[in-house]
């Protein structure tokens, strides 16, 4: 009886596939449906046959955490994206509802991540083999840093899509597909702990984003999407070279292949190799952030992208650059990251905070202004990371979340006015406060957050970054100038944001086209309300963020210092070495050598000869 039951359980995936195939509304005749169903069942057999069935034991599972939660969050949107392909394009309503439901479920699922305290170590970890012969594993987990970015994304994507549905009426199917794909890829990138898996998700984000910019964008959309694509591609190729090199070095020391972050983190490379690998990773992330002088794709991409695309770009995609820097550059190349931080901090202050602010000041297009303000804000984030202190790194992460919320809201509000007037030139407006009072109030509030007025979230992040920079060891004697420069940057932010607000919303209403403008409607209000609420929540109770990230940031900073010491102790060596395992919760899930070192050898032993 048991055998029968097991057999029945094994049949479940095939049966599901068959039923889904049978119910597909393409064909009428029963035998055609039957054929489609059989093909679906066969495909499942094919996929299951390909799937490596070697189980991997995770070091310690936390009983209160459901292991598949992250899988659900990552793969639900991806599977839904594939499902969207098969939904009829004639019914945009169905597509919209389906997509929103999926993203809503994803958001609710991600809220469950907050259910456990983010203590030391990885949470919701899930490991399984993916491509055993190359040593690639599917390894996902979150810590106190990535949990916030995951939540930020699951919140931003539905909002961005909701806004897009308001302004975009054509090609809804492609829109739903691109957003779901992008969302799944971003989630995957935030939770991956296998470098290869990270790279896959990192690349997977590219195509949906260029489609979003290129299909629904503005006049210069094609140029902008080329620029975005080629910049990102250039960065990621160098990162790929570095990943492959590190995996090879690990293989030559330990004798087995792995791309796992926890394993490669243990490598202590000689100076040259460490520098070039760091450069490969840093280039990819600094382009994505973007930091001066690689920021030139950003204004174009932001201005040309539709509102929804801009929100995603500002709120989440740029965060991947900063997140990648914390996780991978600071996590794996402690020595070079430490050595380069003074120089890079100078670039962040001069090129990011100052230059970005000055550029923003002179813009005549509101969206371009907000785009340059992003460059300035991310300069703060990077400065916090370069400082390498607990306060600085926490501030940088808080600032990442804040920037996502407030700049996302700003793009949303700029989109509102663009939908009504089809222009974004500051000169075309003036005195809007008289015709759109609610809108003006919201805009001013969000501007305050962006400027960093105390009581809003922006203040907390910037304050902590400056405080952390002031006491930074890694910046040495450059710490004080950098901190002073950054505080001066806050003043500049007030200058350009407030002068824009003044010119657009106050003064005389002298353009007759603006007299008939309607105030913000309920759809837009629904979209912006959660962001505005969060501005105050995080502004007044920053401890919600800080308490959960405290342990992770502490570990990051501690590991940075330890790694630097190991790196300096290794100075002058020509070969790489492997740092002993640290043990403890931060190395749970570390790959172990496979039973037989090389699959090719293993298979060969049984093959001909």
């Amino acid at each position, binding site marked *: 009886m048991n055998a029968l039951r097991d057999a029945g359980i094994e049949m479940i995936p095939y049966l599901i596939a068959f039923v889904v195939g049978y119910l597909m509304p393409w064909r009428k005749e029963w035998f055609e449906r039957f054929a489609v169903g059989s093909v679906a069942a066969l495909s499942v057999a094919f996929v299951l046959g*390909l799937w490596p069935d070697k189980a991997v034991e995770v070091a310690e599972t936390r009983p209160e955490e459901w292991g598949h939660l992250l899988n659900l969050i990552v793969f639900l949107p991806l599977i839904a994206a594939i499902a969207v392909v098969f939904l009829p394009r004639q019914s945009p309503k169905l597509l919209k509802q389906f997509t929103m439901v999926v993203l809503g479920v994803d958001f609710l699922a991600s809220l469950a991540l907050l259910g456990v305290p983010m203590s030391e170590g990885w949470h919701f970890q899930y490991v399984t083999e993916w491509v055993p012969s190359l040593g690639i594993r599917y390894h996902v987990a979150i810590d106190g840093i990535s949990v916030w970015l995951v939540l930020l994304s699951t919140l931003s994507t539905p909002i961005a899509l909701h806004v897009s549905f308001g302004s975009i009426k054509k090609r809804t199917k492609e829109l739903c597909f691109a957003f779901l794909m992008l969302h799944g890829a971003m989630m995957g990138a935030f939770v991956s702990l296998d470098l290869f898996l990270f790279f896959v998700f990192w690349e997977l984000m590219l195509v949906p984003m260029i489609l979003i910019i290129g299909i629904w964008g503005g006049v210069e959309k094609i140029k902008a999407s080329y620029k975005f694509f080629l910049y990102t591609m250039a960065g990621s190729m*160098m990162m790929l070279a570095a990943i*492959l090199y590190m995996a090879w070095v690990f293989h030559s020391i330990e004798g087995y292949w792995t791309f796992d972050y926890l394993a490669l983190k243990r490598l202590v490379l000689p100076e040259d190799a460490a520098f070039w690998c760091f450069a490969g990773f840093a280039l990819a992330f600094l382009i994505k952030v973007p930091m001066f002088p690689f920021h030139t794709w950003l204004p174009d991409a932001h201005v040309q992208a539709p509102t929804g695309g801009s929100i995603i770009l500002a709120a989440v995609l740029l965060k991947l650059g900063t997140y990648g820097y914390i996780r991978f550059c600071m996590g794996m190349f402690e020595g070079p990251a430490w050595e380069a931080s003074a120089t890079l901090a100078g670039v962040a202050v001069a090129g990011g905070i100052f230059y970005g602010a000055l550029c923003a000041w002179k813009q005549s297009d509101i969206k371009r202004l907000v785009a340059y303000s992003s460059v300035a804000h991310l300069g703060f984030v990077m400065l916090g990371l370069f400082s390498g202190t607990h306060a600085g790194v926490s501030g940088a992460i808080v600032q990442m979340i804040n920037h996502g919320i407030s700049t996302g809201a700003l793009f949303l509000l700029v989109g509102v006015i663009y939908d009504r007037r089809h222009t974004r030139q500051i000169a075309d407006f003036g005195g809007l406060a008289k015709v759109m009072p609610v809108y003006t109030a919201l805009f001013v509030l969000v501007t305050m957050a962006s400027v960093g007025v105390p009581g809003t979230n922006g203040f907390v992040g910037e304050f902590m970054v400056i405080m952390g920079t002031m006491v930074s060891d890694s910046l040495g004697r450059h710490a004080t100038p950098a901190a002073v420069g950054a505080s001066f940057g806050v003043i500049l932010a007030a200058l350009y944001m407030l002068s824009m607000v003044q010119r657009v919303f106050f003064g005389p209403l002298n353009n007759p086209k603006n007299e008939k403008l309607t105030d913000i409607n309920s759809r837009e209000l629904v979209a912006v309300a959660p962001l505005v609420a969060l501005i105050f929540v995080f502004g007044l109770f920053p401890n919600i963020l800080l308490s959960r990230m405290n342990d992770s940031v502490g570990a990051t900073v501690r590991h940075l210092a330890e790694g630097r010491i190991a790196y300096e102790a290794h100075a002058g060596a020509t070969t790489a070495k492997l740092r002993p395992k640290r043990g403890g919760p931060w190395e749970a899930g570390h790959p172990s050598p496979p039973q037989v070192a090389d699959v090719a050898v293993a298979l060969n032993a049984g093959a001909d000869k």
Partner: protein
Amino acid sequence: MIDLFIALSPLLTVGFGGLLLMLAEALGKPANNTGMSPDGAVVVDAGAGRSEELGLLATVILFSGAASSMGVWLADPATLGVELVSPWLQVDRYSLFFSFILCISGGLCTLLGGGYLEEHKIDRGEFFTLVVFSTVGAIALGFAGDLLTVFVALETMSLGVYCMIGLRRSSPRAGEAALKYFLLGSFAAAIMMFGAALLYAATGHTDLAGIGAFVGGLGGEASGETAMVIVGMLLMLIGMAFKISAVPFHMWAPDAYEGAPTPTTSFMAAAVKTAAFAVLLRILLIAFGDPRLMSWGAGWPPVMACLSVLSMTIANVIAGRQSSVKRMLAYSSISHAGYLLMGVCAAMRLPEEASASVMFYLAGYCISTIGAFGALILCGSRGKEAVSYADLAGIGRRHPAAAAAFALFVISLAGMPPTAGFFGKLYVFRATIDAELYSLAIIGLLNSIVGAYYYMKVLVFMYMREPIPGAPIAIPMRSSMVVSALIIAAALVVAIGVLPGALLEMAAVAAAALS
């Protein structure tokens, strides 16, 4: 005895299948709509106007060839009494891997041909017979372990392709393409033959293992034999560089690819190139696998590295400037030859890993490139064949399914996840980095950025641009055969891209069988 025929069954299945196809073509009833002569006269020909039926038969034959390759693979060829045909034909898992890929590629091409030839009114039944016999030659090239069988197989493969290029007799471009390919192909074969003659003169062997043993026994000092071996090797390599269309021996490729009917182009880009790489790897590793010939100082790695860098760089730069998608794909196939040669170069230090990577890359590349050409076929119809980028404008809106398929294959060619091309590229680059050829790997990575530009151009035209008002619009064709070829190719590309494990292990085993 039966064992031997079982071991040779991939070759025999496809070969006798070809004969069956000939009979089916000659003895079948001519279709009614046979108005395919250039001057409009009705030509009574038994094979004409039956593309669908013959194409389907050819596909079945080639896929059963793939199945029998798989069967022999599982049965372990070493136990099948294959020493009788050794060293002329080497039946090992290496050659079976290639015969599997080649049969699949050939089968996809005949599926494409079934739709294309009918749509464009050049439905001559010879096409399918020629594809099948060319595939026989290609499979034999994978099996070949002797310079004589190499030559015979190479010519068997090429002869069919010459005719397939010139299939559209009324078109002067097709004639030019066929003639160009024929002349340069024979020239290359002659050069290769000369190299083979020199090698025989120097070593007294025509079998690759014998040459390898002789070369291994040569002393370090310069002698007449050493000089002849090196010259012979270079001539052989030049001959093969023509077949894989590596720069600077590529000049025939763009014209031939563009002038040929698209299914032929896909066959050339996929199967011919794959077979040439199969024999290239075998010759380099078996006949010239001596440590001295596998070094930077003297031997083939610097030659291969030069060819690789030139192929990648020049082809990528030129491909970016094309306005015809077909020509762009031709140049892209040259640049892929460059990436593959990078893997071949890496075989100097890591023969097994590098050849496994090349084989895996070839599998992914074949399917994606056939898919890309197939999607190009699908985007046009009799009134207007889709050739240039402008023809693709707005396809994404008007015919989303065709555009989605094209996008998938182009993404795979660009080497982005979740496709087969991504893992192929990754594996080849990993082999190159592991072989400590860092500068080669960096050049390759930079090139793949350049490559990404023109692949993205396809996406841009399909999804982001609209056709110029008034210009003739290419209307996608309807053909269940082309569609099924694309579905098979797409499924394989995604399956290999998401779960590459099985194929990777196969490639590793196959590569291990080589040494």
